[in-house]
């Protein structure tokens, strides 16, 4: 980012829109497609105004069919376009699951590079907005387990725009999950125009010496808050925001742990088989000799995401994060 760039103060969802706008302006191979992305500007307004500016051929309202969206986008990508497909909510990506895992993830490998799939699949993701059933999923682990996909989950407006631009430019398919709980929760400085935040690099959000806490997306906020609360109690917490959950920045993850020897992972996704398990396994694989306590997994429970009367009990809260970190520290 050059010094002279202007910045705007944007929410996370505005940063999504700005990222799309920037790349659509830069590269006319980029098209945005999905349900209600056109005139309506997306149910969260993530594509607001794009249809007016770029027209019906580049901002495409599709029929209501997620496999159709993903599958046609794969065909477009193979033919040299750069589709950005919106899934209205991550809970409605499953009809497209086959196209994503059987094709998007494998086209390069299957064809030995003859065809590629520079596709971005975006979806609002995660819980906490008192939404109806099936609207609060966080199943990033499904995509992270499929070789051939990259999975990005930003937590700040700045990263959102930069990562989205990187995702669109990436020559391979990227699943871009947008934590909708923080779509409008706060604003942040976002440069105008062009910049990339590299895929695959974590960010240390807060330095600390007693314990490393790994998180991403909407859970970054309660984690930071818990870290501050614990600071007051004299516990020094390092917070690592993964930003990309696949491929994971294991270097940064391990480096932090080598310093602290204690760790916790915070994610909304169900505990069993969630990325907390992968992070934990990685830590003991690479740095067992530094490990002084079990890695705490502070996660969603192994139950279907409840309707909203109970969702606050389901999602890791500041208190739960504090308790979990404390367990790691006091072990």
């Amino acid at each position, binding site marked *: 980012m050059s010094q002279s760039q202007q910045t705007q103060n944007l929410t996370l969802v505005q940063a999504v829109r700005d990222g799309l706008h920037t790349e659509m302006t830069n590269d006319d191979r980029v098209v945005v497609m999905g*349900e*209600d992305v*056109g*005139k*309506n*500007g997306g*149910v969260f307004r993530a594509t607001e105004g794009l249809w007016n500016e770029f027209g019906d051929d580049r901002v495409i*309202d*599709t*029929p*209501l*069919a*997620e*496999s*159709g969206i993903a599958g046609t986008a794969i065909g477009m990508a193979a033919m040299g376009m750069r589709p950005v497909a919106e899934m209205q909510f991550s*809970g*409605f990506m*499953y*009809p497209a699951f086959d196209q994503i895992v059987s094709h998007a993830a494998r086209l390069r490998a299957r064809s030995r590079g003859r065809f590629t799939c520079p596709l971005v699949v975006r979806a609002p993701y995660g819980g*906490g907005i*008192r*939404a*109806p*059933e*099936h*609207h609060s999923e966080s199943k990033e682990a499904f995509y992270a387990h499929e070789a051939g996909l990259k999975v990005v989950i930003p937590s700040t407006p700045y990263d959102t725009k930069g990562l989205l631009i990187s995702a669109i430019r990436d020559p391979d398919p990227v699943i871009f999950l947008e934590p909708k709980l923080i779509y409008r929760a706060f604003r942040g400085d976002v440069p105008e125009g062009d910049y990339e935040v590299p895929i695959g690099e974590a960010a240390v959000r807060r330095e600390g010496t007693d314990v490393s806490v790994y998180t991403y997306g909407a859970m970054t906020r309660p984690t930071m808050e818990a870290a501050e609360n614990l600071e007051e109690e004299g516990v020094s917490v390092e917070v690592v925001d993964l930003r990309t959950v696949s491929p994971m920045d294991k270097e940064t993850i391990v480096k932090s742990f080598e310093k602290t020897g204690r760790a916790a992972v915070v994610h909304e996704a169900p*505990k*069993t088989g969630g990325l907390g398990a992968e992070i934990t396994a990685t830590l003991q694989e690479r740095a067992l000799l530094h490990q002084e306590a079990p890695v705490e997994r502070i996660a969603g*429970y*192994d*139950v*279907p995401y*409840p*309707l*909203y*009367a*109970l*969702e*606050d*009990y*389901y999602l890791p*809260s*500041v*208190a*739960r994060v504090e*308790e979990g970190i404390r367990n790691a520290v006091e072990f």
Partner: protein
Amino acid sequence: MSVLQRDPQDMLRVLDEGGEPVGEVPDLSDDELVTMYREMYLARHFDTRAVSLQRQGRMGTYPPLSGQEGAQVGSAFALDEEDWLFPSYREHGAALHRGLPLKRTLLYWMGHEKGNRIPEDVNMFPVAVPIATQVLHATGAAWAKKLQGEDAAVMCYFGDGATSEGDFHEGLNFAGVFDTPNVFFCNNNQWAISVPRERQTASATIAQKATAYGFEGVQVDGMDPLAVYAATRAAVEKAKDPGEDERRPTLIEAVQYRFGAHTTADDPTVYRDTDEVEEWKRKDPIPRLEQFLRNTGRLDDEKVEAIESSVKDEVAEAIEAAESEARPEPSEMFSNVFAEQTPEIRAQAEAFAELHERRGDEGFLRE
């Protein structure tokens, strides 16, 4: 000739927009006709109140049904006691006809799972939010009825947008192959959120999609409850096998309009003209049926007023009851995942309970 055998592009109508008969009035008693009216009225009033509860922050996102009462109540009316109903998320009107207490509907949209617990004596499935997925459940349920030798039809509701999903196709195709006793009822309200019907599919009608599955499709005026009733009744009878090997599913396209927003989170003025809305409001099924009932001496001012006031009371009571329902116990999250709790879920439930005990609700609830 059955009403189902007409050209799928020739829309069936019984009442014109002024409530005058233009087709054969179905054989319903005076009481039934008045009840049909009352239920449509109830659905409309319920809807208005639900929208305002949401606006006041007393309920979460809610999908209104105004304009669609004729299609919902008219079709549900055509079901027999033993039949089953598989809704999408908008069929509060059909549900109330079936006997789902309004309180349950409110609770569901207030974020209580309990609202999805259909009473044992109501033959209805829970709400389906993922579009078109219920088409397969309805097909499977009808197939089960057939295999179990029970004579019951299974009605499945879905929208115009739903017809684009693979599950719609697979469900209707299975139904055609296995002759399941299904009535597939498309509430074509012209919009799938902001996507107009023409963007959804290039076929001239939705009814004609039945051709692809080898059974009949019929288009009906969905703002005309009597036409809806007539077509649905014929389909229900056909589903229940009137004669040797004649049992067949049917696709009904009920052409109608959603007067309001897609859900309370939606602003339809962004994507559609108010002119269009006004035009459709002239086809409103409630005054249309009312006019017919008045013209034929089945309804008068007094009766209408009585209905109005009983409906208001009924809805007010349901709201009162729903709002005084206690918030579910947090521990309910951990129950009903499996018939028996697994050790891991038990451990998680215990850890949660311990923390909740220690930190209280303040440890969890966000402002």
